[in-house]
């Protein structure tokens, strides 16, 4: 290959990839310095760095902590409920093939298709009739519904790797439905359920559109708190909270990388060890 062609075929795509990566990193590189500013408006640090805005986050009276707690509680509850519903549906559909599961699937996945703003308007009308506006239950139900599609997709994906005959095999061996559910299907779904739970958590954690419409003074989730603080001030605490979230995500990724990947590669090398021991 000539050097020129080499440059075009390998060099240019490489360059494009690096540029894209840099572009993705820009917000990160901007938001962290801004969070360390010594002024009380959004700006880059001028006469030195300050952790004042991080300190403000930890001040209960500023409202950030309580919003975080609210979001965390709603996201955890939504994640558990959405995952449970999605798992129940996916496993039911796996065991009973037929028309009902596919109809129900359209209904469960509809939040992915309906624009959130339309959904929001509808929920305001509905919740005002039931008196659920600005209530824990109202917000959690909405978040559960919004999170179900992703959980269904994640769990469905891991179920599609299962041999449907396993259920027949288990029944022929004498297992009844609870045993089949707990001992045969669930143990094979742990990764799908984990992924579904995380996706559901994230969906709820950063949901803003519908939440804006159905909450008021009582329930202030973190995205809502950020939204209002952008609307009426340009508090650098925003940058601080964004950086904090970024660091938390980074930490989670690192933990995953070092704890789970290592565990995974260990179990992957096991067969070799076992294979050496015996032959047949």
């Amino acid at each position: 290959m000539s050097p020129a062609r080499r440059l075009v075929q390998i060099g240019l795509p490489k360059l494009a990839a690096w540029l894209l990566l840099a572009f993705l990193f820009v917000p990160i590189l901007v938001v962290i310095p801004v969070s360390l500013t010594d002024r009380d408006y959004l700006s880059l640090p001028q006469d030195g760095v300050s952790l004042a805005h991080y300190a403000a986050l930890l001040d209960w009276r500023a409202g950030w902590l309580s919003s975080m707690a609210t979001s965390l509680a709603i996201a955890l509850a939504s994640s558990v409920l959405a995952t449970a519903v999605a798992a129940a549906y996916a496993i039911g559909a796996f065991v009973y093939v037929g028309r009902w599961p596919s109809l129900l699937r359209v209904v469960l996945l509809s939040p992915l298709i309906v624009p959130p703003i339309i959904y929001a308007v509808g929920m305001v009308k509905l919740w005002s009739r039931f008196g659920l506006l600005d209530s824990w239950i109202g917000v959690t139900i909405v978040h559960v519904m919004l999170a179900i599609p992703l959980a269904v997709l994640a769990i469905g994906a891991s179920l599609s790797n299962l041999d449907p005959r396993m259920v027949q095999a288990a029944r022929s061996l004498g297992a009844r439905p609870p045993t089949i559910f707990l001992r045969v299907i669930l143990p094979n779904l742990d990764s799908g359920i984990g992924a579904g739970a995380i996706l559901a958590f994230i969906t709820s954690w950063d949901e803003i559109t519908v939440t804006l419409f159905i909450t008021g003074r009582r329930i202030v989730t973190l995205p809502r708190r950020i939204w209002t603080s952008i609307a009426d001030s340009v508090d650098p605490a925003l940058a601080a909270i964004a950086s904090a979230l970024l660091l938390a995500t980074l930490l989670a990724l690192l933990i995953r990388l070092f704890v789970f990947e290592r565990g995974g590669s260990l179990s992957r090398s096991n067969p070799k060890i076992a294979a050496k021991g015996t032959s047949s």
Partner: protein
Amino acid sequence: MAFLDIRRLRKSYGAAVALGGVDLSVEEGEFITLLGPSGSGKTTLLMSIAGFIKPDEGGIVLAGTDVTDLEPEDRNFGLVFQGYALFPHLSVRDNVAFPLKVRKWEKRAIAERVEAMLALVGLDQLAARKPRELSGGQQQRVALARALAYSPRLLLLDEPLSALDRSLRETMQRELKRLHRETGVTFIFVTHDQEEAYAMSDRIAVFQNGRIVQIGAPRDIYRNPASRFVAGFIGGNNLIRARFSPETGTLSLLGREIAAPQHFDVALHHRDGDVSAWIRSEDIAIGGAEAGFESFDVTVIDRAFIGTGERIAVRTGDDEELALVIPDGAADAVVVGAPLQCRVRPDLIGFLLPD
């Protein structure tokens, strides 16, 4: 009354008839094979016995008890599939222990039985492995050990060997026969491979379009196929047309006119003068007439080496194609395109009821 009695079992899917009234009696400890082409209803019958398919009509009686409406988990039958359907998250040992734990056996009894089953199928060294760390043949053995661990009243096998390569299949055939002998369990085995059916079964039930068209020992079915379909399906047969002349008592076949052999039953086989007949490939030899043989002239259309000998395809004077199998070395005089003389013993020609 037999151990397992299946009476007039019917099952349709819309207009498609999967089982068109099947009767079958199986003796305790028997190895019976359901043999038939694809779509002939073998799996449907097996899954009805297992309880996963509810028949539209008919009943299944096991040892005097009607089990037609029992759920699969209450039947206490073993089931082995082509895909094995092992539990991927459980080790070999735990797969085999699963049905025993479900039955709430004691820990010690479970451990003992699992050891015994793994020894029986020769997997005691691999007890700690996961199914994905095993070869196809080994997985098959786990599936067998798992389905036999609780001494089921019946073992149902749906083409369990069809995913294995030829040599492994022969090993597993022997293995299955040994397991059948040593456990004494009644085996109902599904296959569409005639040789497999011959090699393993006490009796074979031949399926065609959702019905059993013949049932009997492998030799009986091979020697006396009940219909054109069976004669064609069980392999090794040449199906030919013949014509009977009542005035002279002769048959015209293979381009010759010969005296009807003794076993030719005019009342049974004869309709409008046209007769279906079959000749096994190994019963046709090369060479001229001899005492007890009839000879006929053919043209060679193909020779093929098949290891143990040669398979030769010829065309007869009345435009029938025949295949014959001869020992290697005996075919030196055979030239493709050239004429040839063959001979056959008329008492080895079979005659069939019209379908």
